[in-house]
């Protein structure tokens, strides 16, 4: 497989230059949809194989520090999923390359002329990733723990580098740099480090962790729901909790990374930024709001249900309804469109496309406020969960709690004040408010976490956590998280590519094929849904294989 990939990558430029055709057709669905689906599947599996080592190594390290064997076993179990997913990622990667060379030969020829210098390093990195992965997996329990952990760290470093090389190719298509007016290469490093490269790198690493955590959570949920013993249920309940924890921790800073990416897109080309937020794709962000709202609700719901199995957590139950109300209100604000879909008569009654009342909630000031409050609310849910069976015993416990509440209230006040004040200032000033809003929330999360760490040092426990005794509904919340994350990645893939509109490389290589138009959101969501279902079909197969490898030998069974 590796050899095939290496030969393809190295031979790609030569293959691509042959023949004079710019495009070739793919039967039935057409070239664009074929590439779209395969690229998205490659990305989804790629995200999974990049994310799992990140938290497998972290969990292994926690096992080393605490001496708790469960962490080590969990990290090993995550890694078992990885080996099979890695092969699947490579297969889809090879398919993508074959299809691009065959269906878009001229475009690939151009891209090769820019990035040929990166191909050999990419292949070498790919080899490095493969070897370190297999040493990491097969060396479990056989290498010294420190050496093993170091291999895991190496695996992560190489994995991220592989992603960064591939990101350079993709982001160059959106924000080309390092070329002259005719599109010829001037400086390959400038082409790599194009304006959206680093924002995408950061956004993808964080998003991959969130996605990987949710998929690991879904694996645990699947196993929990089909478990036959209490012991199995307890194990997969705990695994699901860890998966959800990883997903939430990565989900919280994700909007900030998205904001950074959006800002860089605006800085590169204001028109592209406006097309993204106010043009053809403006309604996509309403769909995105529904998805992210579902993610936040599912993550919080899981934590609330999880508190039922923590002895002592019942004292926090009354707070849940207020958190739910706040989340729901924020979600409704975020999903409020700026302009309404209305009949002519309704539009006349409203006096335009904007609803006289709800229209005020459809603007950036309201949405920024809502998403920041949703992040704060989720963080509070997590904090209550963490405190479920703990009581602080330090002398300054009361003042510590008061300080935490004051920080939350202060952060919320800053977010709300700037949100409201944003209605009274010019757009150029309003846009700048996002930074202090985000800063206040980040500060609150970090400050409260630090206080909490000291507050609950040597705390008193009111009881244990009854792992396995959680409502099955919680497992469907985990599945909802995984499906929503996957679907969201597909949707954002559509907008990232769609931003280029009728350009393969924005402003440089024009798309002259029959597909040189941006399809409707309805069409795109159909393609995304089909891709998501194919992905989960493959994933179930991988889960099944993982379970199969744990079964006793056939002869021993009989």
């Amino acid at each position, binding site marked *: 497989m590796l050899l095939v990939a290496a030969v393809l990558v190295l031979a790609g430029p030569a293959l691509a230059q042959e023949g004079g055709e710019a495009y070739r057709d793919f039967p039935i669905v057409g070239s664009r949809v074929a590439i779209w689906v395969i690229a998205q599947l490659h990305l989804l599996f790629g995200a999974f194989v990049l994310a799992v080592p990140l938290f497998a190594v972290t969990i292994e390290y926690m096992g080393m520090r605490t001496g708790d064997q469960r962490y080590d076993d969990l990290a090993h179990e995550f890694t078992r999923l990885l080996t099979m997913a890695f092969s699947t990622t490579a297969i889809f990667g090879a398919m993508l390359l074959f299809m691009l060379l065959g269906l878009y030969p001229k475009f690939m020829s151009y891209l090769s002329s820019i990035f040929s210098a990166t191909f050999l390093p990419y292949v070498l990195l790919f080899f490095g990733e493969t070897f370190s992965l297999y040493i990491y997996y097969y060396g479990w329990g056989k290498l010294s723990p420190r050496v093993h952990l170091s291999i895991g760290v190496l695996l992560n470093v190489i994995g991220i580098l592989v992603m960064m090389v591939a990101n350079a190719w993709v982001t160059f298509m959106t924000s080309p740099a390092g070329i002259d007016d005719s599109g010829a290469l001037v400086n390959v490093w400038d082409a790599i480090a194009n304006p959206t490269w680093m924002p995408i790198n950061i956004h993808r690493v964080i998003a991959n962790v969130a996605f990987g955590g949710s998929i690991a959570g879904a694996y645990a949920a699947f196993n929990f729901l089909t478990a036959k013993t209490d012991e199995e249920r307890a194990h997969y309940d705990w695994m699901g909790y860890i998966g959800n924890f990883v997903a939430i921790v990565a989900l919280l800073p994700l909007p900030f990374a998205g904001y950074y990416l959006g800002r860089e897109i605006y800085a590169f080309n204001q028109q592209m930024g406006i097309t993204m937020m106010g043009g053809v794709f403006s309604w996509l962000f309403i769909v995105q709001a529904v998805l992210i709202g579902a993610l936040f609700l599912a993550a919080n719901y899981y934590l609330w249900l999880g508190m039922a199995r923590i002895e002592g957590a019942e004292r926090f139950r009354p707070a849940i309804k207020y958190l739910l109300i706040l989340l729901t209100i924020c979600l409704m604000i975020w999903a409020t469109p700026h302009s309404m879909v209305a009949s002519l008569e309704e539009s006349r009654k409203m006096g335009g496309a904007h609803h006289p009342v709800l229209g005020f909630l459809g603007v950036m000031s309201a949405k920024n406020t809502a998403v920041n409050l949703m992040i704060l609310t989720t963080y509070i849910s997590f904090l209550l969960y963490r405190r479920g069976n703990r009581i602080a015993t330090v002398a300054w416990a009361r003042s510590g709690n008061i300080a935490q509440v004051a920080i939350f209230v202060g952060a919320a006040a800053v977010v709300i004040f700037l949100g409201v004040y944003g209605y009274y200032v010019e757009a150029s000033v309003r846009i700048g408010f996002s930074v202090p809003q985000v800063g206040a929330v980040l500060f609150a999360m970090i400050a409260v976490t630090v206080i909490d760490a000291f507050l609950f040092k040597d705390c008193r426990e009111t009881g244990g956590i009854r792992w396995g005794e959680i409502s099955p509904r919680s497992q469907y919340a985990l599945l909802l998280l995984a499906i929503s994350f996957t*679907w969201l990645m597909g949707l954002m893939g559509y907008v990232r590519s769609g931003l280029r509109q009728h350009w393969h490389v924005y402003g440089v290589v024009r798309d002259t094929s029959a597909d040189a*138009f941006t399809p409707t959101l309805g069409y795109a969501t159909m393609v995304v849904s089909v891709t998501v*279902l194919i992905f989960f079909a493959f994933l179930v197969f991988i889960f099944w294989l993982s379970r199969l490898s744990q079964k006793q030998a056939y002869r021993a069974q009989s």
Partner: protein
Amino acid sequence: MNVPLKIVLFTLAVTGFYTYVGAIVPQMEAHPPKSTEIGADMGPVELAATGKEIFFGKGTCALCHTIGGKGERCPDLEGIGRRAASRIEGVSAQEYLAQSMYQPNEYVVDGYQPTMPNISRAPIGLTDGEIIAVVAFLQNEGGEITVTPATRFEAAGEAGSQPVARTEGEGPLDALAIIKKYNCEACHDLAGAERRLGPPLHDIGARQTRAQILHSIVEPDAEIAAGEPPYTPGLMSATLMSTGFYDTLTLPELTALVEHLASLEGGE
């Protein structure tokens, strides 16, 4: 119902719900813009009507500009036909409008950022004829249409669809020529203390060493000058890059520029 089947149905239901949400929002299909042929016999009215189509279509001008709105992102263009002749002294309305499309950063309206691209280049890529039509449309906004399909703009000849680059064999420019060529004074006041998009530089020689001045030119984002409201990070580097400053300036020219700035000490 067995659990795996429940999970499959749940997955289908969630995916189906999201597909449904995607299907109920307004559906727009964006097609690539088509070039418009400007006939030699087009009269002013027809030319302005064609320009209007290009303004709201291929030109994508309406993404940023309004006509009769607040002009939050870029200037509102209501009545621009009347104002255009008085924007720059000695520049006619039609030349000013053409310059704002071919060389948009030559003159930036107060209170706005130099964010407009040269629309004769990709990705917008209006043809000379299409730009004539847009000029006609804008002149028609409160002014008189003076352009015809045969009009040739000076601005198109100067920068047009060519990058900012020096002619072969041309010697190094002196500091004042560089300042003029890259329009430094659009953002910096070199003669007085006026705050523009960037800080005034009339006394920069008294405040900074040559090394600091050089550093500010080569890496403008390394340290942003203090100001209230704060200056925009990235603006200077983006502007200079878009004009080809870093690609075309020679070392002797850079030295001359630094020397000149170092000589500005705020005196009369």
